[in-house]
């Protein structure tokens, strides 16, 4: 993964942050990078919050994305992720747990960790807070800095973008790349 080289294969990475902090945009960047080079990715969507139109605008090849909608049932989301991490061939498996992520038992976290080590997939978990504890190799927190508005008059008519900063909360070892310190989406 070129742009998201900090996401390691065979390890668990978490992106956490408040709503509108830019965590989903960062996650979508990873999906774009994986699918645009012909690899296959999966997204387990606990809250059914994925927006295909936004993802397509971001460059995600939707044909290479397996979307699993769990309709708010987080237990199903965890079981679906557990199935996917055991299937070799998926380069990236995203697990979007939304605003109310469940507390993962330590056994499950390490079960996922050993599974991705075996299949060499990258498990990327997005949520409001950390859920895997020591199972994650890298935890990144996003925080929004500013919003850009645009428009011809005094009243803006267009949301031009948002500035996001990232902070590494946990890094078990030095990643090959670093998550972007900040960006504007």
């Amino acid at each position: 993964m070129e742009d998201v080289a900090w996401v390691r294969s065979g390890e668990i990475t978490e992106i956490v942050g408040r709503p509108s902090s830019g965590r989903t945009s960062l996650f979508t960047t990873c999906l774009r990078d994986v699918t645009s080079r012909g690899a296959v990715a999966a997204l387990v969507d606990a809250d059914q919050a994925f927006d295909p139109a936004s993802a397509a605008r971001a460059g995600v090849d939707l044909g290479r994305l397996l979307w699993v909608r769990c309709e708010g049932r987080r237990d199903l989301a965890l079981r679906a992720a557990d199935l996917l991490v055991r299937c070799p061939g998926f380069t990236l498996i995203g697990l979007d747990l939304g605003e109310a992520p469940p507390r993962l038992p330590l056994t499950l976290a390490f079960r996922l960790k050993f599974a991705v080590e075996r299949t060499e997939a990258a498990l990327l978990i997005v949520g409001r807070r950390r859920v895997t504890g020591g199972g994650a190799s890298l935890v990144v927190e996003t925080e929004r800095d500013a919003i850009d508005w645009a428009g011809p008059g005094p009243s803006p008519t267009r949301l031009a973008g948002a500035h996001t900063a990232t902070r590494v909360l946990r890094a078990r070892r030095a990643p090959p790349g670093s998550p972007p310190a900040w960006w504007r989406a």
Partner: protein
Amino acid sequence: MSRFACLWVECFVAAAAERSEPALRAEPMTVLAPAPSVTRVIDANAAAREDGVRGGMTETEARARCPALVSRPFVEEHVRSARHALLEAAFGVSPRVEDGGVGLVYVDAAGLAWLHGDPVAIGRRLWSQARAVGFPGCRVALAGSRTAARVAALNATEPVTVIPPGEERAALAAAPLAVLGLAPDLAVTLEGWGVRTVGELAALPRDGLAMRLGPAGLRTHDLALGLDRDPFAAWTPPAFWDEAQGLEWEIDSLGALTVVLAAVLERLCTRLVAASLAADALEVRLELASGGHHARAVALAVPMREPKPMLALLALDLEAHPPSAAVTRATISARPVRVPAGQGGLWQPPAPRLRDLVAVLARLAVLVGPDNVGSPRLDDSHRPDAYTMLPFSPPDELGRVEGAGDAGSAPRPRGRGTTRQDPPRSDARTLVLRRVRPPRRVAVATADERPSRVDGRRVVGCAGPWRASGGWWDEEAWARDEWDVALVDGTLCRLARDLRTGQWCVDGVYD
């Protein structure tokens, strides 16, 4: 030089009934239509026809003409298996056989002289083959075309007729027009012209026939001349892709049944591999101790020939739909398909193997429902959140990236996005929306026609409106104003106001 043989069985429906019950050949017999109100004759054997029994008569009329008449109901399976047997009989003589319809088989006899001898020997071989599978009254004719062979067979009195090359027109000249099987109105027209035989029809001027009767006249003239208008459509015998296992004991648990199914699948897949085929659908038939049957059809997402993923899919399906009683016999049928060999690109990243992917997709479908697993495809619509869930099938090669572009641009239609040669810039990030499904209603206060409070939270930034509408031509009309608002608690969301109802809702949160 082309040579064709025609194998013809007269009154085939009655012959099929006789084939399944040979004792009926000794007595007049008729096959009756299954209609309960007025039972009519479909077909009759030779003995019944000698007494005047014909197709279309009522059963009462037929019995009045032939008091000793024996009747049998029409059974479609008898006719189907009889057709299959006749084709297989011909297939034993020539590898090129065409199914000409009920009771009619064409055989390409070119080159058969090396195997069977002269045309008479070929004809006798065909006749004996058909006789052996239960059609003693069949007739065989050999000619230079299928049409000529058919007319000769229908008009013949001997079991085997051979028309020498080039003499088809002369040999068929005396045959009545009825052997051509013309449409009733066309037959009446020709009869009105005084045309009674095939030779008289062949002698008519072709241009005049075309002028008066159109394409049907030309086709009829070709038949009279013994010319084939359609190409030879070779028949291929359907393969028998069943494997079964009878049990001396009853199985009442899925675990034990899986072991039996594994053995059956192993045998079936070995045959598929030997024939370079794969299966794209399986059908399991279980005989139950209660005397009933339990049948399940499992469609495979991709053709496969490995027993392990097939067994997993069958087990999942039987787990969801278990048999109602203990199992005494298991049969598995496969629908074979030919899968072209292929390999991934040299620079193609690894993808899930098909058998792994199929098994995972099946398990996910059981877990979250089949409608919730797939790959989204954007619909060609401006309606918000318009997409369709398709079965997940990643393309083999790198294709176009759908709708890649900058933030704020409208979604592009599929196929017009950037390609691998034109990848999205690595620093081009798009602010992504997290959808709220279904959109959540909110109370919005406005100031100067712009949102000022959302559910009591103050709006600190606002852009819009973006007006959109559609579907006004049918009952699903929609019209809305969209606003991007930043709330005091840091939430950046998209609001939508329905212009028809005036209600506000949250479409999603930018994240």
